Each structure stands twice: as structure tokens, then as C-alpha cells.
């Protein structure tokens, strides 16, 4: 079964490679176990669906050729046929079996992508807080006590646990070659488990429309082995400026920024939201939120007043 799947995978890669001038499509070119599982699911479902499409095409063409009026005598009168229990059982049964099979695969995958990467079982996950603001990404490494903007360094072969939230509209954190996307929202923190097998540079982006600067709301991801990662952390600690509250508030202003590096994280003075409905902004002002300036202030000063 597993071998089959890989053979199919390979066949599909070849076809798509030829189609796209030898470069595999990003999503079907996984560089980590989560992304690999998803690519496997996608290709598996593609083949099954191809079967369905071919079946429908064949039946349709057969009917159209065989029963077209010009192929029949003038006095042919089509019969009245109500239906047939066996035929209809097949029409329900086969799709139902396909759906059941795909459901089993999906439920398994759901639990896999929602839990820490298994193949690195003996390692503690690296926790990174990824938060978006219009139209940037802030990455806080609490363990290392450093923070970056618009770029991400991660170690290979270690589970990565992203804590996602937003300082503004809903965004979606997506590094297609490492796994699927998940939403980042202002009023709750979501968790995404990823992992990287292969060192290299990957593209990440916000995949959920968030206003004017959305198209360029991207970041780069560099996966490297643990030693290199540790070296990088050391280097950041010795060279980067500390992140102050004022600096951070400036960063939150709408706009695009290049890549930035800081020591310390914003988590200390601007903690992430916990769950829905928890009032993390202690907005005491009672003048009424219809006041435009008011609303603006609240946004720019985030959750820390």
C-alpha cells in the first residue's frame, strides 16, 4: 500500500514536472513530514477523482454516440423507464464507498496535522509565536529570547510549534512546503505544528486577504541544521538591538517593512490573546467606540494599555 502510494506519487510528480517545465508545484514539493502527508493525500485523492471523472466522461460519450437521434430509425419511440434498484444502488454505493475511504484518510490526517510531528519523537518542539500586523509578520522565539520581522530561521528535524495571532485583521500563516495554513486572529491564539526535513529557503505568506497590502504580505523561511540555528541565535544575541515597547508600536503601523532582528520579544509587554472573549484590551475609555480616533488608538496600541 505504502509502496503503491509512492509509485503513484512519483508518477504524478513526473507528469506535473513535465507540465510545469520541470519544477514541481510548491504544494506537491514537500520539505517536511506534515507537508508530505498532505501532498500524499492530495495526490491520492487526485487519482481517485480522476477515476470518477473518466467514468462519467466514458458513460456520457457512450450515451451520446449510441442514442443520438441521427443514429436511430425515425419511428423509434424511447421507452418509459422508471429506474432500476440495482443501478441506483450502484450509483449510491460506489460514491459512498469512495467518500468513506476518503473520510478515513482525512480523519487520520486531521489528527496528524493537529499534533506535533511524530518522526522527531524524542525532541521538544521549538515554540515560535508568529503574529501578523498590517502587513508584516513578527516572529518571537521565547526560548531563545529573540524576535524577527518578516523572516524565520528554523532548525531541521525538530518539531516546530507555531502560536498564531494577529494584531489586526484575520490572516493565515502559510509555508506551503512545510505544511498547511492556519488562521491568525486578534482574539485568540491558534496552534500550528510544522516540521522541516530538508535545509533550504522557503516562501511563507499570509494567505488570507487582509486589505491593501495583502499581496506583498510575505516572509522567507530558512531551514538549517540545529548547530547552524544555534549559531545564528548566538549571533543575533550579540549583534541585534533589544526590542522596546516603543519600537514595537512603531512596527505595528500599517505598511511594509524589510527584514528586522531584535533581542527580546514583544511577548513580555504585549502578550498574545488567550481565547475568545477574554478581554485582553483593557480599554477603559467610555466615550464610545464610534469615535474614529479612539478606534485607531486602540488598534495601534494593541493589547497592552
Amino acid at each position: 500500500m505504502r509502496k503503491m502510494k509512492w509509485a503513484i506519487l512519483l508518477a504524478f510528480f513526473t507528469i506535473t514536472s513535465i507540465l510545469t517545465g520541470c519544477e514541481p508545484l510548491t504544494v506537491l514539493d514537500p520539505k517536511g513530514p506534515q507537508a508530505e502527508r498532505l501532498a500524499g493525500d492530495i495526490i491520492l485523492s487526485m487519482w481517485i477523482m480522476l477515476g470518477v471523472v473518466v467514468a462519467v466522461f466514458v458513460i456520457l460519450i457512450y450515451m451520446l454516440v449510441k442514442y443520438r437521434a441521427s443514429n436511430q430509425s425515425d419511428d423509434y419511440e424511447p421507452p418509459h423507464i422508471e429506474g432500476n434498484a440495482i443501478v441506483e444502488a450502484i450509483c449510491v454505493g460506489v460514491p459512498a464507498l469512495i467518500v468513506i475511504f476518503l473520510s478515513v484518510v482525512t480523519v487520520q490526517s486531521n489528527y496528524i496535522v493537529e499534533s506535533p510531528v511524530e518522526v522527531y519523537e524524542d525532541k521538544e518542539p521549538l515554540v515560535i509565536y508568529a503574529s501578523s500586523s498590517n502587513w508584516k509578520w513578527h516572529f518571537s522565539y521565547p526560548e531563545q529570547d529573540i524576535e524577527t520581522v518578516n523572516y524565520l530561521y528554523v532548525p531541521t528535524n525538530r518539531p516546530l510549534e507555531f502560536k498564531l495571532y494577529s494584531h489586526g485583521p484575520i490572516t493565515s500563516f502559510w509555508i506551503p512546503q512545510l505544511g498547511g495554513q492556519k488562521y491568525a486572529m486578534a482574539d485568540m491564539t491558534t496552534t500550528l505544528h510544522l516540521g522541516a526535513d530538508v535545509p533550504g529557503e522557503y516562501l511563507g505568506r499570509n494567505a488570507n486577504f487582509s486589505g491593501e497590502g495583502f499581496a506583498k504580505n510575505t516572509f522567507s523561511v530558512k531551514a538549517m541544521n540545529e548547530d547552524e540555528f544555534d549559531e545564528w541565535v548566538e549571533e543575533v544575541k550579540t549583534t541585534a538591538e533589544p526590542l522596546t515597547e516603543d519600537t514595537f508600536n512603531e512596527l505595528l503601523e500599517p505598511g511594509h517593512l524589510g527584514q528586522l532582528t531584535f533581542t527580546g520579544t514583544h511577548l513580555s509587554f504585549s502578550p498574545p490573546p488567550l481565547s475568545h472573549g477574554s478581554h485582553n484590551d483593557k480599554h477603559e475609555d467610555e466615550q464610545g467606540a464610534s469615535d474614529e480616533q479612539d478606534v485607531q488608538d486602540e488598534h495601534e496600541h494593541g493589547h497592552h494599555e
Partner: protein
Amino acid sequence: MEFFQQFAPPHPSPAIYASMVAIVLTTVAIFGGLTYFKKWGYLWREWLTTVDHKRIGIMYLIAALLMLFRGFVDALMMRAQLAMPDNQLLDAQHYNEIFTTHGVVMILFMAMPFIIAIMNYIVPLQIGARDVAFPRLNALSFWLFFSGAMLFNISFVIGGSPDAGWTSYFPLASNEFSQHVGTNYYMFSLQIAGLGTLISGINFATTILKMRAPGMTLMKMPMFTWSSFITNIIIVFAFPVLTVALAMGSMDRIFGTNFFTTADGGMDMLWANLFWIWGHPEVYILILPAFGLYSEIISTFARRNLYGYKSMVASMVVICLLSFVVWAHHFYTMGQGAFANSIFSITTMAIAVPTGVKIFNWLFTLWKGKITITVPMLYSMLFIPIFTIGGVTGVMLGMSAADYQYHNTMFLVAHFHLVIIPGVMFALLAGLTFYWPKMFGFMLNERIGKWAAWLLAIGTCVAFFPMFISGLDGQARRMYTYSEATGFGIWNMISFVGALAIGVAFLLIAYNIYYSTRYASRDISADPWDARTLEWSTHTPVPVYNFAVVPQVNSDQAFWDAKKHGHVLFKDGYKDIHMPNNSGLPIIMAGIFFVWGFSFVFSLWLPAIVTTIAIFACMAYQSFEKDDGYHIHVDTIEKTERKLGGHKQ
């Protein structure tokens, strides 16, 4: 001066100024023309105040075709912008307003009125009724829809269009992030049009339950009526959710409440839930009547009864139920966990089963048939393969884990267009061609029609297949530009070419209407397709009262059996027919609603209060008005029937 400032478009461009001029000129031309040719009286008496379901249907149709034009121009602009990397044709804000407008216009102001147009025209005829259950409410439905659509359409020249997507997710749609009045327009125009739709839903559900001809039991209803019935049930359950969501969203924007904004405990996810509890059933509201149309057309041109009538009905009932339990598949990625995702994944994929049943039933309807490929049949035969591709990619999207990779990408855009274009738009064009002779008394040209259908189908494939690839390559939807390095350029260029082909197909359809209006023979029978259901048993053009004598039905293809097996449809003699009077109230009320919505969009409180009172005044007036309608007497009926070529049977 400051007062007028707020009405200026926030991002003016030559295109917007040109549109303003065009709108003013067109309006002047229409008003001038009507005045010059002294047509105001005719227009008012015969159309604007009509309560005749057939005329209301035609007005819906005209509005839908206009909106199709608008929506397609927007689509073309988007495809042109994306055709090349780093293109400068549109800036981000314009692109955002355009895809939002395109989405809203296509779904709510094109597809919705189009299906309601055909429902209006056909359902009463198909069930042998003289009108809908509440004719005056029907007129109100149309005018409310029209008023909502117009309110939405002026947004880009007055004050700015909505720019948060047709899904209008909060907090992006809140004042904080969407500062001009665009989203107010979204809230109020959808609210007004939605009220119209809800009223329509109640009206048609009642009509179908209460006004069927004698003998037409539920299981003898033609398939289009069945699909309309299920659709209206869905409308009645789904639209109140939209009403509530829009009301809450409007309050957030206008009165500073925090239902959906993230301040003070507001919940952005609540909007997503409410929106999709309406939004997912909405796509079935669009597709089920389309399925009904295909069933009629395929059995007509295969010259055979519909295969598996009972399973067709059953599958629609199942789809109706399932459509309300899958909404969360639109936000698998919102962090609801593996368990919830699994549940919604299974319910979502389960819809594939009844849908598959329908496809196989259509295929088996062809079996042992005697198939002629007319234009409506050509659309239906092109629908099956393209829709199947759209459908199976929907199953792929339904797999929640994998959806983490498709969500918000062009893969999704490809999927839903490949479902909605063959599923809804082809069906409507097929239905339009099929029913054109009943509506207007002549046939559309078959040759031009076939060219258009093929071009439309090929254009659709060329425009949307590449998006599967660019989506899997990481192109997110709603991106107004991308860099050369991404490699998306080639796919988007192909897509643009496909969109152009679709445009040519639309031009051909328009040309066909013009050509056929001029040259087509007016000498056609009441039943030019040799069709099977009751709507073809009455005269063309259909007299106001639809049927001089109420038909008696004994099968689901009553007219066919009458033709082939000598069943008698019209047994009784003529009797006086009771008809409703025309009324100006619906259009007046909708006009007031327009001003009401406009006032709220700009927070103009005085007119808002005045119009609110006026709306209630209209309702009060209506409820005290005594209007018993009028009678058409036997001698008039006889005269009309004779003029239309002798009475039926």
C-alpha cells in the same frame, strides 16, 4: 461643501469618472426617450405596477442580464490585471473593490435574480396555476431586490465600493480597517435585496404547496418545480440568518457596537459562522433550480421520461438537509481542532453522494433515448463533464487536512467557478434559450447559440483550469499582483485568454438575441420543442390568466401524456377568472427602502427616520386597503382564446 465631500469616491480614477458620465448619460437617455415617446404611462401601467408573475419574471431577467454584464466587466478587469506579473493596470485598493463587487454582483445580483426570474415565469405555469400565492408580495420582492441591487451598484461612484471580499470577514470589514462607506453599502444593499428574497421564498413555497392543479400530487410535480420547492424551503431557513448577521454587522459599523470587531469581547468568528450558515445553503439555492432545469431539458431532448424520478427528489431533500450542516468547511483553518474538522469533512464529502446520484440519473436518462442536440441540450451536455471536474475538486477541498493547502488559493477559485459556471450560469442560459419561445414568441437562432455555448465552455476551461496549477503552486486568491519570480505569470495569461473567450461568447449571445429578434420566425407553435410539462400546454404568448381552463394532471409529465396517450388536460368549460389588480405600492415602497438604505450608509439621520416611518406607513396603508381584484369574464376569455389560435382541447 464638507457635507458633499463624503459622497466623493475615495479612490477616483479616470475609469470611475467615465462610468459616472456614462451612468448620467444613460439615465438621461432613458428618461428622455420615455418622455419623448410618451411611454411613461405604458411603462407604469403594464410593467412597473404589474403583479403578473410572467412580467415580474421578465423584469428579473433583464436585471440579471445587466448584472451579468457588470459582473463580467469586473472579472475581465481582474483577469487583465493578473495577466502579467507586476502589472500596473489596477492598484491594490481598486482590485480589492473589484473582486468584492464581482463576487457580490455575480452571486446575489446575477445568479439569484436569474433563477428567480425563471422560477417566476415557469413555476406557476408548470403547476397549472394562474399566479403565485401572493402576487403583490411577488412584485414587492422584485422591487426590493432591484432597489438593493441599484444601491449596491451606485457605491463605486458615490462614496466607494466595499473592499473586504464578498465574505466581508470582520474585523477587516469593521470601521477600523475599512474606513470608507463601502461596507455599509454591502450591509444595506444585501439586507434590502435579502428581504425581497426571503419574501419570495415564502411566496413560492406557499404557491407550490397550495396552488397545484388538481391531480398534481407532490410526487407528480415536474422536476423543476420540485427543485424550486426545495430551494424555497432553503431560502426560508437560510435567509433569516443573513438578515441577523447583516443587522449586527451594520450596527458594528454605524452605531459602534462590538458584535464582530475584536474590541470589547466581539467575536470575529461569529461573523464567519453566521455568514456561512447562510452562505453555504446559498450555493444550493443557486444550484438546485439549475439541476431542475437540466432535468427538464435533458428529458425533453432525450425524448424520454427522467430516469429515477424518486431518487432525484430524494437526493434533493438530502442535499437540502446536508447543506445546513457543512458550513464550517469554509474555515477548517480557524483552529477548531481535528475533531470538528473531521465531522464537517465527512458531512461535506457526503454531499457528493446525492450529487453523484443526480449526475448518473441524467446519464441514464440518455440511455435508450433519442437525443437531439439543441442549444439547451448542448449546454446540458457540456455541463455534465465540466461540473463533474468542479465537483470532484470540491470533494478534494472537503478533505479538511488537505484543505489546509488549498484554502484561500486559486485552487479554490478554480473549483467554485467550475461548479458555478456550468452548474448555474450554463443552466440559466440553457433555460433562457429553452423558455425564450414561451416568453417572447420566437426562437433564438440555433447556429449562433451553439457557437456561443461551445465558446463559453472552452473559455471556461481555459480560464479556470490553469488556476488549479497556480493554486497548487502557492498563488493565493485575492492577490492583486505577484512577482515574476513566482512563475504564476504563464498560468494567469492563459486564464486571461480564456476570460476573453468567455467575453466573445457573451457577445455572441447578445448578438443572437438581436439577430433573432429581427429575423426569427414569429410563426411558432405553443410547443416548439415537443416538450413534456404543463407550461407548454398553454398559448404562446401566454395570456394573463395562464390557463383558460385549469388543467387536470395525472403524471409528472402531464402534457406529454396528453399528447401521446390522449389524456385530456382541459376538461371543464370556461368560467370567470379572478385576477389581482396592479399596484404601485411595491415600487414605491422599494423606492423608499432605497433612500432608507442610502441614508444609513451615510448616517444621514433625518432621512433615515423619515423613511423608516414611511415604510411602516406603507405597510399600514397596504393592510387597510380594500382590493378584491377583478374578474375576467367568459366572453373576454373566449375572445382571447380565439385570437390566440383557438382554445386548447
